[in-house]
């Protein structure tokens, strides 16, 4: 049966992380790619089963750190040497060893903020609306004690009946259709 307009996907509910990971691995072996697991705590095995290996948070953090380092050091150099040159007890205007401490702090500040906000941005958060919140059982367990696998309708292999039959063989507690 072709996908009807307005279906986000099929959501299978599991009681244990083991059942979820098993079903996810099988779905990947069966050729599904557009899918996602939803768990109350990070399940690394689920990420492996989905084939999610790397993310770009470390890169963003590094860029933030380099930005903080250069910003702080150049700012202090400019202020002390050109912006507001003052003779403090005969010390050189460009007294770089003293500048290292604020530079160190801003390196950490910028990279920490990049890690946190970069993570949120890559995750597309904040996102108050998501089709999954329409599923009747999702909010009763996804952040508590249930494990969900969602096979999305945009996957070329997706077919409402076949996919439902496929998911039901893994002893899912329930398989529901999620509206957009």
């Amino acid at each position: 049966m072709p996908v009807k307009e307005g279906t986000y996907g099929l959501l299978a509910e599991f009681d244990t992380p083991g059942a979820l990971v098993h079903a996810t691995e099988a779905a990947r072996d069966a050729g599904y790619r557009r899918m996602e697991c939803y768990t109350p705590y990070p399940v690394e095995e689920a990420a492996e089963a989905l084939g999610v290996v790397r993310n770009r948070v470390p890169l963003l953090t590094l860029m933030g750190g380099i930005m903080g380092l250069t910003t702080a050091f150049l700012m202090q150099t400019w202020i002390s040497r050109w912006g507001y040159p003052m003779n403090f007890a005969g010390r050189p205007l460009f007294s770089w060893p003293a500048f290292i401490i604020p530079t160190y702090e801003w390196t950490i500040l910028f990279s920490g903020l990049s890690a946190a906000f970069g993570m949120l941005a890559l995750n597309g958060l904040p996102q108050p609306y998501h089709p999954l919140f329409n599923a009747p059982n999702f909010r009763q367990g996804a952040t508590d004690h249930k494990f969900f696998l969602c096979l999305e309708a945009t996957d070329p292999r997706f077919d409402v009946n076949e996919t439902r039959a496929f998911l039901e063989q893994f002893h899912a507690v329930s398989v529901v259709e999620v509206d957009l």
Partner: protein
Amino acid sequence: MATKGQISDPMIDPKTGEFAVIAPGHNFKSVTEKIAGVVLTSNTPLGWFFGLIVASGVATFLVIAITWLFLKGVGIWGVTIPGAWGFAIINFVWWIGIGHAGTLISAILLLFKQTWRNSINRFAEAMTIFAVCCAGLFPVLHVGRPWLGYWLFPYPNTMNIWPQFRSPLCWDVFAVSTYATISVVFWYIGMVPDFGTLRDKAQFPLAKYIYGLLSLGWRGSTRHWMRYETASLLLAGLSTPLVLSVHTVISFDFAVAALPGWHTTIFPPYFVAGAIYSGFAMVLTLAIPIRKFYHMEDLVTLRHLDNMAKVMLGTGLIVAYGYGMEVFMAWYSASHWEFFMMWNRMFGPMGWGYWILIATNIAIPLTTLWSRKLRVNVTYLFILSLIVNTGMWFERFVIVVTSLYRDFLPSSWGTYKATKWDYMLYVGTLGMFSFLFLLFVRLAPMIPMNEIKMMLPQTKIKGLDAETTVEETA
């Protein structure tokens, strides 16, 4: 796994003989219910209201002291020449130091994979933030014109002046503001998934709405979790050098000055160790009543208290080494001024401060914390935590006051006496700290639910790879 007979206490892990990190019998649902229940209940315990009233009553002192300060100026404090740094800097250093244990628990112990920290990291981080709030008040008030406090930051202005980057006080601004920002971000990011749980569990529309906003739409997607875990680890990796640098920079406020008693190279490590020492004492002061009041003994177990007491023993010994080195260097430096400062610190008119410090920071804790019996005696630990907090306050008092009040020239000697406004301000910050902490305990999940769930035996997945199977059969 069956118990081996001779050990009947369910809190002791039969495999290792250690206390269990989480009491047996918990599952995903019970963890959520227990922790979210404290926040989402409609029956707020009467004791909480009582605590809040007492805390806000004490915090009123803060409002009064600050109002009078704004009307009269810093002249109402006991600071004068030669004791130009009094309670304001003592309390600033003390509060910042307390905050350090929170970051140590959330960051350093995460990097060292000490999973037992999962039960206590959330409220230790909250403690950090509220302690930094209290600490931040003091320098801002001490500048005399707090409404111009933003002059501390480098910003383009019509006066065409800029901060002086060769001064440790300027470094302080950078260190403490970075510390406050990163702590808040780390704390909030850590709570986002738990706010998602609260959003889904809440019954009242307003609670649903507010926790929904705070959760940013968190839905526990695995791709999100992986980025989240990476970000948490990176934040931990960044907070670790940060927390070590903050008290180092604060110690530079003293160590860079050419004053006997301040001008020493031992200060940075000894300040950081002292900070962690007092911080763990404060975590115990908070954790012991809370776990009792909210019946969290199964999540914050004797293992946690025992481990924290061990950390206190370790950092306490570093602090003791610091004191020893100060005395040794006073003699070994062969500097007349250093020697006199140390003699005056011990036997001068304010020598009582030094001996209170030695008794409360060294003599009592470092002789008793070796005993496992005492380390798991909850009442004793609570009393000890108060003693160490007092001791660490006196450490700052001794460093600031006894180094300042008798300097090189006897004709300029004086004394330092705190006024009632100094005491009111200090006591007021204790009230503000308790007030904020009580609000936190009531309104936010005080124990990270997702991190506790990660430690449960139900998370084991059978038959995936060799490693898990070996663990299962062991």
